[in-house]
């Protein structure tokens, strides 16, 4: 019984990391109609910068967020400016951002090589730490990821529901022309939203950096799972993304124990297919649950 419980706890918290990765993607896809594959490169780039800052300065790896979050915000704004300037539609955004993804991964390879990079144990106080309740361990890196996912999703939900920026953004998502007629500046709102989404990618990157070694190919490994989280959670629904991340982590871990780790991906992607067939708007609906 303890094995199921421990695996379940680990799974839920690993799901938190998937959720942090999914938040920004869900935000831009749901509200700006931009399917941003470059999001994965931004996460990876942030993880590398975290590695670099920590190994160069010996500072706490979480402090690297002070550098990467504003930097990635600026990158997100720049990408959105290009998308807006050239009036890139939803499908074309996929192609454009795929190109950006490839370029970014190559840049990362050129800077850090294809070699594995990992923050040394002495400089990473989080890597192997855990809190215990009885025999059940709560690993610190995943716990931070889950906390970050919840905090970001709740904060964004609040902003979308209770601020002018949020209302304007939702109005743009429903009908850009009508929103424009009411004075909503879609360029400014779009760039700000993309910047926030990329800042979320930066947070995910810092968490990846303290959680595991990084290498250029790593970004490709996330794509399938993170898209599953976004789709199951409901595109644009950030609380849904957190719930979907936790659900996937939980399913993955329980199948792994009850059946076989080899069967876990099968079940998760079967879940995705069923959701697409029977709940095409995701398990929790689109756009903030509405």
């Amino acid at each position, binding site marked *: 019984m303890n094995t199921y419980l*421990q695996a379940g706890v680990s799974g839920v918290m690993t799901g938190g990391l998937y959720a942090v990765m999914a938040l920004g993607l869900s935000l831009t896809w749901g509200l700006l109609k931009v399917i941003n594959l470059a999001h994965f490169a931004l996460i990876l780039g942030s993880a590398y910068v975290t590695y670099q800052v920590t190994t160069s300065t010996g500072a706490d790896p979480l402090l690297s967020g002070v550098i990467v979050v504003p930097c990635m915000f600026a990158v997100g704004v720049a990408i959105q400016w290009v998308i807006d300037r050239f009036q890139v539609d939803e499908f074309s955004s996929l192609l454009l951002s795929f190109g950006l993804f490839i370029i970014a991964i190559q840049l990362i390879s050129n800077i850090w090589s*294809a070699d*594995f990079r990992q923050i040394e*144990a002495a400089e990473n106080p989080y890597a192997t730490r855990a809190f215990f309740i009885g025999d059940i361990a709560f690993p610190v890196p995943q716990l931070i990821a889950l906390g970050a996912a919840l905090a970001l999703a709740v904060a964004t939900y609040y902003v979308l529901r209770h601020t002018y920026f949020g209302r304007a953004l939702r109005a743009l998502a429903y009908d850009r022309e009508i929103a424009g007629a009411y004075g909503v500046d879609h360029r400014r709102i779009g760039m700000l939203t993309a910047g926030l989404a990329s800042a979320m990618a930066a947070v995910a990157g810092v968490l990846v950096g303290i959680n595991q070694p990084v290498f*250029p190919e790593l970004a490709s490994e996330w794509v399938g799972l993170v898209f599953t989280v976004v789709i199951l959670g409901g595109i644009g629904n950030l609380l849904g993304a957190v719930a979907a991340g936790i659900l996937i982590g939980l399913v*993955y871990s329980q199948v792994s124990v009850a059946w*076989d780790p080899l069967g876990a*991906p099968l079940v998760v992607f079967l879940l995705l297919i069923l959701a697409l067939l029977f709940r095409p708007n995701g398990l929790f609906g689109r756009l903030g649950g509405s």
Partner: protein
Amino acid sequence: MEPRFLIQNARRIVAVAIVLVALAAAGTGASAPAQSGEPIVVGSTLSLTGAFGATGVIHKAAGETFISWINANGGLLGRPVEWKLLNDESDPAKVSALYERLISQDEVDLIMGPYATPNIVAAQAVAQRHGYVLPNHTAVLTYALTYDCQFPTWSAGGKPNLAVPQTVFKMLKTEQQTPRRVAFVTNTGGSTNFISYGPPSSSEGGAVEWARKQGLNVVLDLKYPPTTSDWGSIAAQVRAAQPDFVWNSGLALDPVNLIRAMEQLDYRPKQFFTLFPAPGPLLALGQASDGVLSVTLFEPNGKLLKKLGRKAQNIVRLFAQSAASNGLSYRVFDSQATASWTAWEVLAAGVRGARSLDNERVCDYLKANGVDTTFVGKLRFNPAKNNFSKPRNLVKQIQKGRWKVVWPPALRVTKLQAG
């Protein structure tokens, strides 16, 4: 200088100049025999990006070291050697196409194998079709390499699925560390699955079967897919089984992720063995990876390296420089670099022995004579055994932040650290 002085001493100046030129020529000749003619072109691919990229770069650094070294030492058949290297992006389909291009369009003189078993198997088909010799450094699926002119240098024997567990468990028994409870955790990728379970459609078995036959108590036998991201649930199952010895047939970062997840659950078995790890990241785990065991062809530990002499010491030093310029953070000439260097030595020895670039003659020479190598001794190639030499499985262990050879007794630099 006055013109008068030059005129008066013209004879002396000319004499001194002649002596200096002669000395310079002699000096050059002594350090590197003259090379002339068109360069010999060796073509190959490596996975410089993609899933195998991180290890592919090690082979690039080793290959570049060899090319510099051989050209500084007279080249091959008196000609300089050039390496035409292409990136196969870790894709066996691209490997086939690129080797076809190297041979048919670029008309390279010789080829060198790519990195990682699936790619080597893909290159083997092209090499065989064109009758090219294919030295290769990292083939593990011994049963799949049937071309009689492919020459593997990862000398794990014809049956590494039996030889590796035999070596490891014999060492543990001899050192009075025989485990009571063994857990197997296996990546289902081709090479690692083969070591744990043996060849497909065969009753031969692998490490798991071998352990059972030895009467060891196998308390867990768990397989995971190569793209596993949830290590917590695997670690939870290992902890629940309470093994005192964990055998991880894993690749690259697998042991790093598994050890980290087990540490988070506050579980550390007495002994942990892993097959094909990325050596650097394991060391970066610090105390958590102390005592981890693995197999190797060679480690440049002080005594071992000293025994091999100056040439080996120079190669290890040059490799470290090449690794640095290739952006590698772990620059030690370990198993991967050794296998790579040895494959290049096999190719060079074949050409020198055959005194020709004719691939058929090179192949015949290698089969008939084998090769004396710098780091792994004499390699003999027997097509009946798919040219895999007798096993050379050294066991290494992380001790105080460094990999050290602990087995066999004749080659170890320190004793096995008890769990």
